[in-house]
């Protein structure tokens, strides 16, 4: 359990965007409503050069959220001590407002598989994930946020619902949650429940950040809809509606627009941030 006296720095309850190097100049000239940026930790684990120089300049104007994709918190093995040390180094240098990772695994043995892979929700995996979160929070000296995954399938051996699993992790480790409403919509569609019922069961009081992004549509073996988390387009209308629903429960929160593939020009991404700003304005006014 994390020491509660370690008050973490906070992201502003405003729109943020996933930072892409090609937006460096335009983003700084015309940030619109964007008050913070999220970076993928692993892209800044080189020794220097342009990535570090850009980040050094951006941190003066924007709060920064470090989002890891490589810790493999849901992995069967122990956390990679080298990778944890690299993360410690990055977080120590950058002093970001937030650090987050995924309820997923991406490393097996000495291999990194470059995807967020699913795990069953059992007593055994709960204990293991909680231990990993404890280890990360201790190494970084701060509370971390854990993101709900996009699911394409379920495990027959699971004995916990995802929402109960997340709530129990919060209780055991003191971590916060990163609520990805696009992932909620994808998982709900793919596994046959309503996204509202997921939010109703989800521990909204632990939310420290919200993600919104785009998905693609496909079909499974039986012709049922199968949504794919692609981050390659605008967020779908029902996902924006889900954001409103989530914000009604959390109150004002940092909302991040994710767009990682087929990255658009800055005005297009800014327009998504404008939409997130409008959703936040409604909550603030209400």
């Amino acid at each position, binding site marked *: 359990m994390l020491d509660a006296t370690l008050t973490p720095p906070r992201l502003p309850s405003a729109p943020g965007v996933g930072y892409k190097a090609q937006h460096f100049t335009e983003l700084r000239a015309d940030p619109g409503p964007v008050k913070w940026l999220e970076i993928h930790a*692993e*892209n800044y*684990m*080189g*020794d*220097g*050069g*342009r*990535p*570090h*120089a850009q980040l050094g300049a951006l941190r003066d104007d924007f709060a920064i959220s470090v989002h890891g*994709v*490589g*810790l493999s918190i849901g*992995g*069967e093995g122990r956390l*990679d001590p*080298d*990778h944890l040390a*690299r993360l410690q180094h990055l977080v120590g240098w950058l002093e970001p407002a937030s650090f987050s990772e995924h309820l997923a*695994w*991406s*490393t*097996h043995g*000495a*291999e*990194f*598989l*470059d*995807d967020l*892979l*699913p*795990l*069953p929700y059992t007593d055994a995996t709960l204990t293991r994930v909680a231990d990993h979160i404890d280890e990360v929070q201790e190494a970084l000296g701060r509370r971390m946020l854990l993101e709900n995954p996009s699911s*394409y*399938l*379920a*495990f*027959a*051996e699971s004995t916990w619902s995802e929402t109960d699993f997340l709530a129990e992790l919060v209780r055991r480790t003191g971590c916060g949650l990163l609520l990805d409403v696009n992932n909620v919509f994808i998982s709900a569609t*793919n*596994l*046959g*429940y309503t996204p509202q019922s997921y939010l109703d069961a989800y521990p909204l009081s632990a939310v420290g950040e919200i993600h919104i992004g785009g998905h693609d549509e*496909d*079909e*499974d*073996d*039986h012709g*049922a809809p*199968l949504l*794919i988390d692609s981050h390659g387009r605008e967020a779908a209308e029902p996902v924006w509606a889900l954001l409103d629903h989530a914000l009604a429960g959390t109150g004002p929160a940092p909302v991040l627009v994710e767009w990682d593939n087929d990255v658009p020009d800055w005005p297009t991404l800014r327009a998504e941030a404008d939409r997130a700003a409008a959703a936040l304005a409604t909550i603030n006014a209400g």
Partner: protein
Amino acid sequence: MAASQSDFRAALLDPDRPVPDGLTDGDGNPTTRRFSVYRNNVTVALIDAMRTGFPVLAKLLGDQNFDQLARLFARAHPPASPLMMHYGEALPAFLDGFEPLAHIGYLSDVAQLELAVRQSYHAADSTPLDAARLGAVAPDVLMRTRLRLAPAVQFLSSRWPIVDIWRYNMENGAQKPRGIAQSVLITRTEFDPERHAISDAQFAWLSAILADATLEEAGDAATEMDPEFDLGPLLTLLIQHNALTDMITPKE
């Protein structure tokens, strides 16, 4: 039966393996297509990373051939760490033993050049050596002085015209590759790596300097390759591109 992460991983990168047991859709029915999403995600992510990391190879081979190569490589050599900026380190050796492309002899060297450029891009920043310091050293002391290269400096030798091949594929209006062997020096004046064709003697000099030789010893190594070796142009190039960081004069 529960699917372990070992089963999951094995089936991910090998489409001929059966889907692990214990995976279902939302209603508890077994599913294959849904597992394929993960198979596809991993494969596409790794191929994309290869395309980003080896743009010249992708251009030389064309998208279809390159993707085929990347798919086979990724199955044999998944990334060894989450630092995707270094992914593909095993590609030159993989290409050396890859029969279907053995008729294009220079692919392995091109891959090596692309890896070196990426290493240079992500290398640590450094403060360049003030050329005036070098100029102020007495000639006899200078011969016993050692130089330090910037972390972003890379150099490699090839029996193919790899600098010409690189330019021809990446720059508009570049001349066709000539039938010559080329060594290449990579520098990074600020953030973007620069490629310079260098002679065998210049390569020998750089190798000696990197191995902590004095200027006299490095000069001897270069002169052995080329009796007419003149350090001037190389030294100017290194200084202009912030490729030297320090000089160590002998202690007396």
